[in-house]
């Protein structure tokens, strides 16, 4: 066989470049495993009963209550701490040593954040659902119209624009006018971010419904709206529900718009017109905190958010796979 002169070189390049694509894939998988691994291990170790049932505790007071030490600063007795050494050694007068807030002891839990996230994200989803689902129906059932292209593009703009922009817009519209950070403002900001997800998944799922089903309904004399609500949407319902769950998971993890609209809180609040705590906000604030105990809570909050995303994505995967199998 007459092999070309540069055959070995070409073969070599082929091997190297194919190997480098494998390497690139490895480069993507390693940080993924590192992130998921760290969050799951460090986050899981932050979990306790207290994590889910307690609210914010000042590290100072929590530490003092836990090991019987004197709080470095007692809000009920502000002058008690004066003259007491703050390096953890016992004072000369024989009282308990001052609480060491950098020991990483217990600092309460994030129940207020969990409740806040459920309320804010739930309300946001409630606002986003009618617009998202009907826009999805429009995009799927009238898919060839020119206006549908415009709507589709606007959806892409919404999902592509930075999440902070949604926060800024709601800050201008709601927070400045009402002179108050509020949970409802956060829900509206999350609504802006969830609409494109609900719209696009609804559209995709409705498009998966075989054309023959639409034709069959039409053949029986059903008008479009009737066949849409009784035939096509029920057929695509599992897919739409998973899309809604995905939107919930995305909204629950959004932080930037909440900084500008919800602000955060240290107590359990269910007042929609007042600042409220939220899990991603707590993860952000506790990451910036100097207290190791609060840093641990940040890992715990990250763990809960990560589990939400993982579970939702796996559920979506299972649901869509079953759908794809059934339509075949």
């Amino acid at each position, binding site marked *: 066989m007459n092999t070309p002169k540069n055959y070995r070189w070409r073969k070599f390049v082929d091997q190297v*470049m194919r190997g480098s694509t494998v390497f690139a894939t490895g480069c993507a998988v390693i940080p993924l495993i590192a992130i998921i691994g760290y969050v799951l291990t460090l986050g899981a170790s932050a979990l306790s009963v207290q994590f889910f049932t307690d609210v914010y505790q000042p590290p100072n007071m929590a530490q003092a209550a836990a090991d019987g030490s004197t709080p470095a600063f007692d809000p009920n007795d502000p002058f008690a701490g004066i003259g007491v050494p703050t390096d953890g050694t016992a004072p000369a007068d024989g009282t308990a040593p001052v609480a060491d807030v950098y020991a990483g002891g217990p600092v309460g839990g994030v129940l207020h954040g969990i409740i806040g996230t459920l309320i804010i994200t739930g309300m946001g989803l409630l606002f986003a659902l009618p617009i998202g689902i009907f*826009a999805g129906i429009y995009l799927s059932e009238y898919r060839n119209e020119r206006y549908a292209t415009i709507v589709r593009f606007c959806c892409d703009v919404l999902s592509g624009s930075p999440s902070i922009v949604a926060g800024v817009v709601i800050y201008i*519209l709601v927070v400045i006018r009402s002179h108050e950070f509020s949970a409802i403002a956060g829900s509206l900001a999350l609504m802006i971010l969830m609409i494109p997800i609900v719209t696009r998944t609804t559209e995709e799922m409705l498009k998966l419904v075989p054309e023959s089903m639409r034709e069959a309904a039409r053949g029986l004399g059903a008008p479009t709206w009737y066949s849409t609500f009784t035939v096509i949407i029920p057929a695509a319902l599992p897919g739409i529900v998973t899309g809604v769950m995905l939107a919930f998971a995305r909204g629950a993890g959004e932080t930037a718009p909440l900084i500008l609209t919800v602000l955060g809180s240290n107590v359990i609040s269910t007042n929609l017109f007042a600042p409220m705590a939220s899990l991603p906000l707590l993860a952000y604030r506790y990451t910036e905190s100097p207290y190791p105990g609060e840093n641990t809570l940040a890992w715990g909050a990250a763990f809960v958010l990560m589990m939400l995303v993982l579970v939702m994505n796996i559920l979506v995967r299972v649901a869509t796979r079953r759908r794809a199998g059934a339509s075949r």
Partner: protein
Amino acid sequence: MAKQQPAESWSNGKSVFRHGDVPFRIGTVVLASCVVALVLAMGVIMFVSSGEARTAFGWDVLFGQDWNPVATDMAQPAFGAWPAVRGTLLSSLVAIVIAAPLALGIGIFLAELCPPKLSTPLSFLVELLAAIPSVIYGVWGVFVFVPFFNQVFSTPVSDALGDYIPWLAGPVATGRGVMVTGIVMSIMILPTIASLTRDVLRLVPNTQREAMLAIGATRWETIWLAVVPYSRAGIIGAVMLGLGRALGETMAATLLIGNSQRISPSLFAPATTAASLVANELTNSVSTLHESALITVAFALFGITLVLNLGARLLIWYVDRGMAGGRS
């Protein structure tokens, strides 16, 4: 859609209104228009609210060097967000330089080389990266990646080369800075670029590959000379979408970049980005002018991502269209 034609003409009859299709259509169009209205409203609201700063400073809001919100005896308040704009551009540049080649490799591997059994779980893993909330990247970055990177890369490199190359100069104080932010951002935008690249590569007609293989090309030559050039426009579009995501990234940047207004040539030095400037200062703005300047920055972000989205969608749409024609 030719099949649908008879049914369509049938449903255009007079009795349609009685059957409720016109109200259904109006309803879906109105709710779909909410999406369009939302995008327009976001643009208009931010344009109007940024008016004060734009008339006071003009383009200097974005390109002025001084960011000084509080009036002192020494200086009038000045709003020039160039440090933030520069930080955004630099960190996104680092992100795209790292992510684009890796994502191209992943896309090629997933679309062309990967055994089908491995392809689905790998795609799922890569897409999972995109679903993780950005605040988790921030938490992971602060507690795990920054100390690691500081020890393994920043400190030795700035010690060895910092005196000769100004943009690798030390001191690497906390480790937070442009380069760390760029690297974490590159992990975040990898899945966006990789999955879109995979999709456009899969659209390349098989005749391209077969023709190349038939004249004796290796696998890699087939990919690099026949498949990738064919979908070049789509890959550029994917990179643009990734760039848009990096430019607007808020939480990871806020936590990792160090939020410093000082302009330093070093990539290891703390800086700030447009999105993190808005997230940090908007809720604490000291005057309406300050507020308005921050809204101008957010508006610029919105505008840039809109242009990038438009360009990317046009490119991907162009590829999609050209290939659909080519295949038939």
